[in-house]
C-alpha cells in the first residue's frame, strides 16, 4: 500500500521530545515490563538534570500484553494520536514485527527494539534499528567457540518455540556451516506454558550430546541448569544471555549447579562482586536507588533499560536542534565507538548506514561458582 | 386397507431392558390397537416409564422388538421417533423452560417441517409461510386446551398442572398417531381429574390418536381406558378390561392393596 502521512517531518515541538513505546506490562512476558519502567525512570533523571539540549523527554508507554494485534493498535495510537517522534525500545519480536511495516511506511523511527531478532538489521526496513546483539550472532559465536575448542563435540539444543529460539538455532546453522547436521544431533523445544523442561532435558541427554545450548528465558534456563545437574549430565553447557543472570537465574538454579556454564555477555552484571567498584555500575546503582527505589537493582532488565535509554540520549544529543525524524534516524545510524558505561569493556556501539547492529560483539564468560569469568576478547560474529 | 387395520399400531414383542444388574423390563409383550386408550398400571418401579423410554429410544433395549405400524422402532434414533407418529409427555414435565408457552408448542411442530440454517438465516418466503402456518396451528391447539391466555407466559412460572397441559399441547402439535401420557393426573384434585378424563377422550376423538396412559389414579384409568395392562417387576402381570383388572387377585395384591 502507499506510504501515507507526513513521514520525515519534524514532530518535536516546543521544549519536549515526545517518544512512545509498547511494553508487555501484563501478560506472559510481563517480566520485561521492567525495561519500560527503567526507561521511564532514566528519562526522569535526564529531565531532572535539565534534559537533552535543553529539551525534556516525554515517554508514553502503552501496555500491549505481548499480543501483536494490541501492539499494532497501541503503536497507531502513539503515532497518530500521541504524535510521538519515534517508537523506542518496544519489547517483543512478534510485536515489533507486527508494526515494522507500518512504522517504515510512515517513516517513523523504530529505534532500539528490545529483542534480539535478526530482522532488525534489514536494509529493506531503513527506519528500524535493533540494539542488543542479535540472538543469531550470539549463538554463532557459541558454535565457533565449540568448533575451536572441541571440534568433535555433539551438541544438543533446548529452545523456546518462538522467534527467539528459532533465531538461536539459525545462528548455530550459520556458525557450524556444513558441519551443522553432524554437530547438532538433537533439539527439543518448550512452550512458555510448559510447567517444566525436565522431560526435554532427559530427551536431550539420552541423545548422547557432550554440549548443550539452553536458549531459554530465565525460568526455563534455571530449570534446565538444575535438571542437567540433577541427572548427572555434564555437558559443556552454553546458556543464552537472556537466561544467564546470576541473581535471577543461577541462584535459583543453585550456584553450585551452575559452575562451568558458558554464556556470551555484553552488559555488566551488577550482582557480580567485582563490579561493586566499577564506575559504570556505581552510577547505575545510584540511579536505581534514587529513581527506582524498591526495585531489585540486580534485575538485568533494569540494566538493559538503563543502557538502552542512555543510547537514545546519545542519539538525541547528536541530533542537536534538528529533531526531525530523518535526522534522528541519521544520527542513530551514526554512532561510532560509543562506550556504554554498563557495557563490558571492549564492547562498543557502532552503527552506520550499512551497519545496522548497534551491538555486534559478545564476550564469552564461564561461571566459576560466584561470578562469570570472562575469557578471550570480545568476539563479533564475522 | 383392511390389512392395515389389522396390524396393531404398536407391538412390544419380548422386550427386555436392564440397567446394570437391575432388570427394569423382562420380556414384555403387548399391543396397542388403533384408536384405543390403553391404561398401563403397576407398582412403583414396575417399569412403566421405562416402557415409554423405550418408545422414545431413551434407553437401550437388550432384547426383543418394538414395532410401530409393522416397522421396527429400534432401527430409529431418538429424533426420528416423533416423525413416526409417537409423541409423549414426561412424568415430571420436561418443557423448554426459557421459552414461552407458544414457543414450546411451536417446537412440537418441528418434525412436521423442514428447517435449515441457511433458509432460516435468509428468512426465505417459504420459511415465513411455514412459520405462519405453524403459529396458527399452535394457537388453535392452545385454544382447544384452554391455554390461550397464557400464550406469552414463560413456562417456568406456571403451576405444575398447567405445565402438564402445555406438554400435552406440545405433544399434539406433532400430529401423533400414538400419544404417551405419563401420570397426567398427578397433583390434580378430584374435580380436575374428572375434567382431565373428559379432555383425554376428546383428544382421542378430535385428533384420532391412540393413547397409552400411565397413571396411579385408579378411578381415572379405569374410567377412560379401553384396556389395561398391569406390570410388576418388569413383567406383564395381567391384561384385560378395566373391570377384569379391578377384580384380578394378583393386581389387587401387588398394586391395589386391600381396601382399607
Amino acid at each position, binding site marked *: 500500500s502507499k506510504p501515507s502521512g507526513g513521514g520525515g517531518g519534524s514532530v518535536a515541538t516546543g521544549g519536549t521530545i515526545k517518544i512512545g513505546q509498547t511494553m508487555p506490562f501484563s501478560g506472559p512476558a510481563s517480566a520485561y515490563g521492567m525495561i519500560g519502567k527503567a526507561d521511564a525512570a532514566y528519562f526522569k533523571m535526564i529531565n531532572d538534570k535539565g534534559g537533552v539540549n535543553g529539551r525534556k523527554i516525554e515517554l508514553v508507554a502503552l501496555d500491549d500484553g505481548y*499480543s501483536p494485534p494490541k501492539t499494532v493498535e497501541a503503536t497507531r495510537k502513539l503515532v497518530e494520536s500521541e504524535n510521538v517522534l519515534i517508537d523506542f525500545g518496544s519489547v517483543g519480536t512478534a510485536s515489533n514485527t507486527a508494526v515494522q511495516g507500518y512504522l517504515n511506511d510512515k517513516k517513523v523511527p523504530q529505534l532500539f527494539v528490545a529483542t534480539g531478532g535478526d530482522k532488525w538489521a534489514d536494509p529493506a526496513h531503513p527506519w528500524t534499528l535493533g540494539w542488543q546483539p542479535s540472538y543469531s550472532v550470539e549463538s554463532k559465536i557459541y558454535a565457533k567457540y565449540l568448533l575451536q575448542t572441541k571440534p568433535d563435540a555433539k551438541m544438543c539444543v533446548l529452545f523456546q518455540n*518462538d522467534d527467539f529460539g528459532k533465531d538461536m538455532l539459525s545462528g548455530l546453522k550459520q556458525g557450524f556451516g556444513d558441519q551443522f547436521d553432524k554437530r547438532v544431533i538433537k533439539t527439543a523445544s518448550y512452550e512458555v506454558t510448559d510447567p517444566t523442561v525436565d522431560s526435554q532435558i532427559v530427551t536431550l541427554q539420552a541423545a548422547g550430546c557432550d554440549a548443550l545450548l539452553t536458549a531459554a528465558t530465565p525460568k526455563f534456563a534455571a530449570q534446565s541448569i538444575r535438571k542437567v545437574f540433577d541427572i548427572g549430565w555434564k555437558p559443556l553447557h552454553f546458556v543464552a544471555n537472556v537466561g544467564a543472570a546470576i541473581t535471577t537465574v543461577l541462584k535459583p538454579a543453585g550456584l553450585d549447579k551452575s559452575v562451568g556454564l558458558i554464556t556470551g555477555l555484553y552488559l555488566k552484571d551488577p550482582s557480580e562482586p567485582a563490579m561493586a567498584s566499577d564506575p559504570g555500575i556505581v552510577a547505575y546503582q545510584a540511579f536505581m536507588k534514587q529513581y527506582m527505589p524498591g526495585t531489585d537493582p540486580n534485575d538485568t532488565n533494569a540494566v538493559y533499560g538503563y543502557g538502552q535509554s542512555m543510547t537514545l540520549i546519545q542519539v538525541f544529543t547528536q541530533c542537536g536542534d534538528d529533531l526531525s525524524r530523518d535526522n534522528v534516524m541519521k544520527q542513530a545510524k551514526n554512532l561510532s565507538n560509543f562506550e556504554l558505561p554498563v557495557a563490558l569493556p571492549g564492547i562498543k556501539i557502532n552503527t552506520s548506514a550499512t551497519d545496522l547492529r548497534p551491538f555486534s560483539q559478545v564476550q564469552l564468560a564461564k561461571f566459576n561458582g560466584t561470578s562469570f569469568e570472562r575469557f578471550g576478547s570480545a568476539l563479533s560474529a564475522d | 386397507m383392511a390389512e392395515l387395520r389389522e396390524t396393531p399400531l404398536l407391538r412390544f414383542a419380548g422386550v427386555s431392558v436392564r440397567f446394570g444388574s437391575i432388570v427394569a423390563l423382562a420380556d414384555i409383550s403387548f399391543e396397542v390397537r388403533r384408536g384405543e386408550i390403553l391404561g398401563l398400571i403397576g407398582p412403583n418401579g414396575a417399569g412403566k416409564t421405562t416402557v415409554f423410554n423405550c418408545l422414545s429410544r431413551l434407553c437401550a433395549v437388550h432384547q426383543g422388538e418394538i414395532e410401530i405400524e409393522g416397522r421396527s422402532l429400534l432401527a430409529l434414533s431418538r429424533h426420528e421417533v416423533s416423525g413416526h407418529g409417537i409423541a409423549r409427555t414426561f412424568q415430571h414435565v420436561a418443557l423448554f423452560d426459557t421459552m414461552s408457552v407458544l414457543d414450546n408448542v411451536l417446537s412440537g411442530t418441528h*418434525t412436521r417441517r423442514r428447517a435449515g440454517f441457511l433458509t432460516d*438465516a435468509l428468512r426465505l418466503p417459504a420459511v415465513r409461510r411455514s412459520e405462519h402456518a405453524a403459529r396458527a396451528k399452535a394457537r388453535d391447539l392452545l385454544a382447544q386446551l384452554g391455554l390461550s391466555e397464557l400464550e406469552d407466559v414463560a413456562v417456568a412460572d406456571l403451576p405444575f398442572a398447567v405445565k402438564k397441559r402445555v406438554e400435552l399441547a406440545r405433544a399434539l402439535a406433532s400430529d401423533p398417531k400414538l400419544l404417551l401420557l405419563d401420570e397426567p393426573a398427578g397433583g390434580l384434585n378430584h374435580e380436575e381429574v374428572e375434567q382431565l378424563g373428559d379432555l383425554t377422550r376428546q383428544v382421542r376423538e378430535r385428533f384420532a390418536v391412540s393413547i397409552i396412559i400411565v397413571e396411579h389414579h385408579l378411578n381415572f384409568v379405569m374410567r377412560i381406558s379401553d384396556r389395561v395392562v398391569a406390570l410388576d417387576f418388569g413383567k406383564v402381570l395381567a391384561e384385560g378390561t378395566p373391570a377384569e383388572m379391578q377384580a384380578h387377585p394378583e393386581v389387587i395384591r401387588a398394586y391395589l392393596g386391600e381396601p382399607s
Partner: protein
Amino acid sequence: MRGAAGRSARARLVLTALVATAALVAPFLLGDYQVYQLSVIVVYIVAVLGFDLLTGFTGQVSLGQGAFFALGAYTGVIALTKLHVPYAATPVLAGAVCFVVGTLFGRTVARLEGLYLALATFALAIATPQILKLDALDAWTGGSQGINFGKPASPLPTLLNDDRSLYFLCLAFAFLLYTGAWNLLRGPTGRALVALRDQPVAAATVGIDVAAYRSTAFGVSALYTGVAGALGALVAGFISPDSYTLFLSIQILVGGVIGGITAIGGAIFGGAFIEIVPDLVSKISDAAPWALYGLLLIVCIMVMPGGVAGLARSILHAAEKSRKARPR
C-alpha cells in the same frame, strides 16, 4: 398486551436506526486511528456473535473461539498472499473453511457436555499457536514469525482512505451476519437450538436431531468467528501465532457474557468491551491495570447478571411496568 409489544418493537426500531446511523457516519468524523479502533470493535462484534450463537443459544460452552478466529485469519491471509484472492473475498473463504472445520469438530465433540466440552474447546485454543508454529507448515504460515502483508489499499482511494474502506468492509460483513443471526434465531432453527439447550432429551422427542443441530451450530459459530478472524487480520495487516493465544478465546467469552449471551444485540456491547475496557483500565491505574480489570469484570457480573442486554431488558420492563401502574 399488543400495545406494549408494539412499543417495544418501536423502541427496538429506533435503537437500530440510531446504531446504524452512528456506524455509517462515525468514520467520517473520526481520525484514522479511531476508525481503525472502530474496525477492531466491529471485528470483535462478529466474533462475539459467533460465541453467542454457540454458547448463548445452543448452550455449548466454548473456551476455544480463538482457534477459529486464528483459522479464519490464516485462511484469509494465505488466500490473499499465496492465492491472490481479492482481499474483500478472503473473509468469505475463511468463513467457509471454518464452517467445515467447525462442523467436523462439533460432530466429534457432540457427546461432550458442560465442563468436558469446555475442556475440548479449551484444548483447541491452547494447541492452536503450537500448530501454527509447526515447521512443516512454515511455507504457508510463516512459522513463528507470522506473515506481515501490509494493509490492503482502498479500492476507491479518492472517496475512502485505507482505514475507512476496511472499516466499511468489516461493517458490511457484520451487517450481513447480524441480520442472518437475527433471522435464524427467530425462526424454527433458533427455537430448536434453544430447545436443545433447555432440555435436550425433550428436544429429541419432539424430533430435533440434537447431535446434528449441535454440530451445525458449531460450524455456524466457527463461520462467524472465522470471518471475524479474516477481517481482523486484514485490519491489522499482520498475523502470527502469538496473536491467537488462549487469551483471545477468553476475551471473546468475556465479551459475550458481559454483552449478554442470550440477546444478539448484546454482541455490540461485548465487542466494544473487549476493545475499549483494557485501555480504559490502564489509563486509570498504571500500577495494576489488570487487577483493576479483574475487579471490573467481577463487578460487572454482579451488577448486570444478564449482561448489558439483560440490563437493557430489565430497564425496558421496569419502564413498561411503571407506565402500566400510572393511573390514567
